């Protein structure tokens, strides 16, 4: 029996642990906004493909409708072959189920990715879209010019949704050893987020997963390990609520009314973080499961 198990492990490799994947803790409520988040994924290497496979498996139980991409979508070469290898092939099974991708640009991305239909950027470096009661703002932090700042402020001021979520590449708060917090961006963006009631922010850039303690009432997630990974690169600080740097990972999120449920899952299907954020008119409060 042990031999059989060993053989099974060898044949399936990393996928063996998929059999041990935990059940999802997300409620899958009717009419909720359901999405996944990946960052720094576009390597074209086996771990990216394995994360994509795990996403597909979880999609069966948690049918998310779209994926937000937190930048560094395509590393290295950007030829048509590269796009195939680093995006279309690994995520094709997901796209075949109707899942859409909404990309933010990272410092490794060609700005011409905004013309790539599968990234839903409509030719813009920065853009906004609405899903249910959530307005998403996608910011290009590699080139955060005054025009973009004015656009963001105007958009946030005019958003009438319950939830305002921003995502971009450089994390305002991070305990990653390699880059750490992007303090200059924080100085510019955080006052705007606070002024207009942004509740949740997603970023990448650091090749780890981290959820910080709420900073001035805003929840910051870093998911920069959906392809790349810097094992052991997370220096847990007073900022860190939960961090994970042992394996690649991705996030799943569900917004239902005033609640936002989240679940971070490793490449092999292990839940590394989960919890709920409750929207309040001023400061959201969180309860976490792990």
């Amino acid at each position: 029996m042990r031999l059989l198990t060993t053989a099974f492990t060898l044949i399936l490799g990393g996928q063996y642990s998929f059999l041990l994947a935990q059940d999802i803790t997300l409620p899958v409520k009717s009419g909720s906004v359901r999405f996944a988040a990946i960052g720094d994924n576009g390597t074209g290497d086996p771990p990216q493909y394995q994360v994509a496979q795990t996403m597909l498996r979880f999609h069966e139980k948690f049918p998310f409708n779209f994926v937000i991409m937190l930048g560094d979508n395509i590393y290295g070469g950007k030829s048509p072959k590269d796009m195939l290898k680093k995006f279309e092939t690994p995520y094709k099974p997901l796209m075949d189920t109707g899942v859409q991708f909404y990309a933010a640009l990272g410092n490794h991305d060609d700005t011409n990715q905004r013309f790539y239909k599968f990234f839903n950027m409509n030719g813009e470096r920065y853009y906004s879209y609405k899903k249910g009661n959530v307005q998403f703002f996608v910011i290009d932090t590699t080139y955060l010019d005054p025009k973009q700042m004015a656009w963001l402020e105007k958009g946030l001021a005019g958003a009438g949704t319950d939830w305002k979520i921003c995502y971009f590449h450089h994390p305002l708060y991070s305990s990653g050893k390699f880059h750490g917090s992007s303090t200059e961006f924080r100085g510019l963006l955080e006052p705007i987020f606070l002024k207009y009631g942004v509740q949740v922010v997603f970023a990448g850039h650091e090749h780890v997963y981290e959820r910080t303690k709420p900073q001035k009432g805003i929840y910051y997630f870093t998911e920069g390990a959906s392809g790349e990974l810097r094992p052991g690169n997370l220096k847990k600080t007073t900022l860190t609520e939960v961090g994970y740097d042992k394996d690649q990972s991705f996030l799943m999120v569900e917004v239902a009314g005033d609640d936002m449920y989240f679940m971070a899952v490793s490449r092999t299907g292990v839940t590394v973080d989960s919890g709920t954020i409750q929207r309040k008119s001023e400061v959201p409060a969180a309860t976490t499961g792990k």
Partner: protein
Amino acid sequence: MKLLGPALLFWLLGAVYAQPVQPKSVDSPAFREFSQRVKEYVQLQKAVPRIKTTKNRKEIIAGRNALAAKIRETRATAKQGDIFSPAGTEEFTKVIRSTLQGVKAPNVRKTIRQGEPQTGWKLTVNGEYPEDLPFTTIPPTLLMRLPQLPPEVAYRIIGHDFVLQDLEARVVVDFIAGALP
């Protein structure tokens, strides 16, 4: 009429607040000249079809290459300093260096470092920004102190050099060597 004064003042304050804060140097003659040259550059490229949104990555690459070829053809004699004039070079270098040495300098320098700055390769006007190299993140504090650009072009930092790049064509339009300390 009594109400008009405060209303006008309120409107003016609102208009001022809505605008990004720009230092006086953005209005300098050297920067005005730079903006005019950029405008002329962009106008020159208007005749070339821009890239359209498509699922076909080959079309994006083909569009980029066609645009780059056209730029090189129309600017065959372009040389360093055509856009960044001597006065512009001086003004840009002054603003860049003061931003990197001011109160916010540590954060600004950190932003540049975070972008994994590239060194060790030679810039040429009309040359290509290699597609497999990352972009150095441009500090927003610096962007606020420089002339705003039309969407067709962007500032880049490569090593110690400051670059004006055509975004779609990935072509180096002009650069200032050694603008950064």
